[in-house]
């Protein structure tokens, strides 16, 4: 099993958002997490991305923990947050260069830039980009290197129809390459397009 989440608890503002949440996903499996607004989908992804710390529980990727401050396995994780709020003064090129340096991998190739349509704003600061442009740029940074777990938070928000199709194609390719993908979404059509296993986050628990 590639990804294993066991008994994850998280309390936010006095409310138990995740209550012993558990999930397993195989290599190359795509999991779409559904749930009401505020159910904790983003919180779960933020914990797996290392943005938030869990109160209890553990999560492993190929047997290595991805939680906590010293999680070496995080180099194989890619994350695109819902707001795609990379630092406003950086350009997509600079963000990708930073991620590439930290992961010790090459920067994105020309083909990826063309595919994601990044060329037109590759050197413009994030602060001046639309949500869809920011999301494409963050996606580019997230898939750099040998990514074994890709976390996408509401990935279709702000994307035009062509962008959604391109994203679905990218996820399908990643899946074929063995990357496990977790997608928090409200879009059943997108989940179907990427052939995702559906789970529902309700009352802090993940239900298949």
């Amino acid at each position: 099993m590639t990804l294993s989440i066991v008994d994850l608890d998280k309390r936010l503002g006095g409310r138990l958002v995740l209550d012993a949440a558990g999930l397993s996903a195989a290599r190359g499996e795509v999991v779409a997490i559904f749930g009401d607004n505020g159910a904790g989908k983003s919180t779960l992804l933020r914990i797996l991305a290392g943005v938030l710390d869990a109160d209890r529980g553990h999560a492993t990727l190929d047997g290595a923990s991805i939680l906590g401050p010293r999680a070496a396995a995080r180099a194989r994780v890619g994350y695109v947050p819902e707001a795609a709020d990379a630092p406003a003064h950086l350009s997509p090129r600079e963000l990708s260069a930073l991620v590439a340096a930290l992961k010790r991998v090459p920067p994105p190739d020309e083909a990826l830039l063309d595919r994601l349509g990044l060329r037109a704003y590759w050197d413009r600061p994030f602060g001046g980009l639309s949500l869809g442009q920011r999301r494409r740029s963050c996606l580019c940074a997230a898939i750099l290197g040998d990514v074994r777990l890709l976390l996408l938070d509401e990935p279709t928000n702000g994307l035009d129809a062509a962008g959604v199709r391109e994203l679905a194609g990218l996820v399908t390719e990643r899946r074929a390459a063995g990357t496990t993908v977790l997608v928090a979404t409200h879009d059943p059509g997108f989940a179907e397009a990427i052939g995702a296993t559906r789970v529902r986050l309700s009352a802090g628990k993940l239900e298949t």
Partner: protein
Amino acid sequence: MRHLALAKILVVLSMRAAYPLAAPLLLGIFLVATVLFGPNGMSPPEALAVMRASPTLMTVLWAGWLMLGLPAARAALVPSSATYLRWLPAPRLVFHLAGGVCALVVEAPWMLLFGRGEGLLSASTAGLAALAGHALAATRPWGAQEALAAAGVGLAVFGHLPPLAFGAALVAACLAVPAAFRRAPEVSSGAARGFWGRSPLGALASTYLLGVLRGEPAVLGRALALAALAGLILPLAARGHDLDADTSIGALALGLAAVALAPGLSGAVAAVVRAERAASWLCDATGTAPRTRALAAALAGGLLGATSGLVLATVGALGLHAPLALAARLVVLAVASGFATGAVLVGGAREAEASPRRGDRGMIEALVWAAFGAAMASLAGELSLGMVLGVGIVRIGTATRRAEVLRRIRGAA
């Protein structure tokens, strides 16, 4: 080396987030320090000796510094713009060091005071303890680690052995900074409940205050700088008039507050009214009563005035080497006077907007209020506070009754 690029970006993000909040603070402190520690003022060693002799004063000044510096220090320590970068495979130490170093820049005036007064070790202790204090203030909820860090801050502030105090400050900072980092993305969920629960009055007032703090911090900085200057004048005036009795010094403080707080607060209350105007569509859409809006604006102005009064009293008490009873007296009088001044000036600013003569009316009301407060203080001494509060309540009542007029004018505009 590969983490250096990330560290540089984190430093830029911290400085960008902290600069708008820190600049007015540092400028105000510079102005106050220029006068307080000028040729005829105190020296840093004298100021620290006074602080060390009075644990109460030490507590008040530390609390004051932590309150004043919190927005800028928090922005430097855990800038929200850097949250996205946390997913990157980099040690958290890079985040802690970048944020901590930038927050120490905000603590520089405090460190400078202790450094000039007691030397490098004391400055380092003060800087680390202030950093830990600000990190703890930005952390919710607390656990055992945070409680231990708070104990370390206490030991650093009140410890008598400098090396021990430094060690305690270092440990506190090492515990508190990671705790603040860990909790920072969670804070918004707690803050969403608002400053004062679900009360419309409190929620609106806190919205207006946030509008001033985030949108126009410079006007608040100016108000506080003027209040600090008035606080510096208090001991000089008291000595010049040979005032010894607490009641006489209290009356003098009231007179100074009346004259000095109104000009500084007039800019801040104008910012409150602008924040109120910006939120007026939301109030219209939610059916919030005009009276509630007027009261919330008065409350926000009053709180800004109370803060100015606190600064005036604290600086004045420090300059007077005031014992605890006199210091408490000055704080109560100046805070109450400042609250009334802020609330009344908001009423004036709202009336000015509703009046054809607009700006004139607010300015004239501020001048009349200052003259009235000063005259009452000189005639009735400390009892004038009762009259000032009484007139203030009447004035706020008038403003709330006329609130509907302003709502209609804004709606038409």
